[in-house]
């Protein structure tokens, strides 16, 4: 877990988001979505600000953040990598791709490299099954990826 001190600007942005939803505890998930968009993740301090604004225990906010896999407490890399594990990609060997990413980057799924450049995640189907197996890096889609190509793809992003 990464401990950071939020700048007053970010705090006021979070407070504005909460206010946008009338500080309504029932809107917690929507608020978390918007707040995650701010910095790409939801560090402890962000959750504490939200809990305070909504007047709910921070344990409740943390419970929701850890329950839904979309929410993350780890900052994403500058190049977020998502390997598709949908059925078509899976049968065409996406698990091998995932292993190769893990090996080269020396991180696990859900983690970010120390230099903050890459983060690794899985997703379920981007609707391009004809290109299986598919990997998304940022907003770019790579189709028919083979494990031997991965090193080169990453190097091109250097």
């Amino acid at each position, binding site marked *: 877990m990464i401990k950071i001190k939020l700048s007053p600007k970010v705090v006021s942005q979070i407070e504005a988001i909460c206010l946008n939803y009338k500080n309504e505890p029932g809107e917690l998930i929507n608020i978390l979505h918007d707040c995650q968009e701010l910095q790409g993740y939801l560090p402890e301090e962000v959750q*504490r600000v939200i809990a305070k604004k909504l007047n709910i*225990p*921070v*344990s*409740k906010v*943390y*419970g929701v953040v850890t329950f839904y896999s979309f929410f993350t407490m780890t900052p994403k890399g500058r190049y977020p990598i998502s390997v598709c594990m949908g059925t078509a990609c899976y049968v065409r060997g996406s698990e091998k791709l995932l292993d190769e990413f893990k090996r080269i980057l020396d991180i696990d799924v859900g983690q970010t490299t120390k230099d903050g450049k890459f983060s690794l995640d899985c997703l379920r189907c981007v609707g391009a099954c004809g290109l299986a197996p598919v990997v998304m890096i940022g907003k770019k889609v790579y189709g028919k990826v083979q494990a031997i190509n991965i090193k080169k793809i990453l190097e091109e992003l250097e």
Partner: protein
Amino acid sequence: MKNYISLKIDRHVLSVPNNITILDAAKRIGINIPTLCHLNLKDTCIKNNPASCRVCVVEIEGRKNLAPSCSTLCTDGMIVHTSTPRVINARRIVLELILSDHPTDCLICPKSGDCELQDLATRFNIREKPFDGGELSLRKKEITTSIVRNMDKCIFCRRCETVCNEVQTVGALGSVGRGFNTTIAPAFDNKLSESECTYCGQCVAVCPVGALTERDHTNRLIEDLVDPDKTVIVQTAPAVRAALGEEFGLAPGTLVTPKMVASLRELGFDKVFDTDFAADLTIMEEGSEILDRLHRFLAGDKNVRLPILTSCCPAWVNFFEHQFPEMKDIPSTARSPQQMFGSIAKTYWAEKMGIPREKLVVVSIMPCLAKKYECDREEFKTNGNPDVDYSLSTRELARLIKQANIDFNKLNNAEFDNPLGESTGAGVIFGTTGGVMEAALRSIYEIETGLELKDVNFNSVRGMDGVRKASIDLNGFELKVGIAHGLGNARKLLEDIKYGRNEYHVIEIMACPGGCIGGGGQPLHHGDINVIKARSKALYMEDANKARRISCENPYIIKLYEEYLDKPMSKKAHTLLHTHYFNKSIN
């Protein structure tokens, strides 16, 4: 819609109100459907009903799947079967699945013998673990000053989460993660000791298994008792005597004061004293403080804030230090009876007896787990030596008595030692909600009006409602008092004060439902509110049987002031019997 409906449960046809569950309906005709996650302490707000364990399923004619009886309402003409082979098989599978990743070290589990999962496994004759889910060793174990968490044993009934969040509104425990990785933990998987936890122990009181238990000091006590260099004395809280008997097969509400004293003497304590004595002392200090603040407030002193809040309950003190630090100057500065006792024992009494402080061990028997934390507070130590060395719960005392081969029910009656064992009825009722207020009112009335109190029973402050209010006529002045038990109810009163909606002069708060009698260190009530009510009744009975029922009439208290403290709120009394509070806000 009809108010009453009729249905058939097994071979019984019965008529019930239309808004009750099958579980409750069955209970009325003596059919005890097994439950595990379900908990409903009626008349308090403790209710956990996630219908998640599925142990209570029943078969309903015309319905395909089995229905959880804890959350399915009765309907007219319904035909329910509670123990068909299909139902029993389903329950067994549910239990086998729960056991698939539950440790089977029952022999050395602190909950063994009092575990609801163990009881069900016995009841349903589970003799093997057909499913091997593997043990999840990633979950945290933590030992705090009061509570021990062993999350390997958690079965996710969510009782602790409900109690912590919805009843106590503390919000320390919540569910984290999902699927097999779920655990119940403070936010960010922090330690409980670094969370908003008040150590009220209500999570321990409702945990059906060994996931949440108390920090056990029995071995420490055994070692101290055999140490020839140490003088070991004990104080017992009022609520203990109304519940200890339950551990020895006696009915809830059986008063066992004389046998409790005898058992403590058998265990080898050098002196057996009573926290009730210190409760009387608390009334002297707190009562004087109430009157002092009230007089100054009425005289127009702008520096005085009202209402004044009681400060006997350590979980409540933790609660406002964490959640309402801006109001930390409102509660009375009087220490709790436990701490007043320790302070007097290690000064007045120790000096009298010529025992050096470091050779005197003061132990308390409490219905409470927060008391363990309170002993450990730095402000209650002198050169690192605590006023009260450590505190044992009612359950731990029962364990010690059993271990020491004492046949509790055959003990001869015994009486407390003096001077710190003498108490009035006012000290006794400290253990039940409304009791501290009533005790204070008895003394305040006499001190303020100079009149003799004709009827010491203030029935208007008694009862089990979560928030109660009453007006007391103090010879023409209308004293308005409020009472709350359960921290969620306390929060309501605090928010009223915070936003200027206060109408009270004095407020009593106890963290646990029913007050100390429902404390986190008491024998487990297993969801039966009548147990707590019976204990309350027992305390009022002990009060009624006392020769003296007003704290300021306790002869040893009068003597203590004459010989040592001078008068209530004196400089010495302030040093020894009062305290201050801290801002412990995390956010």
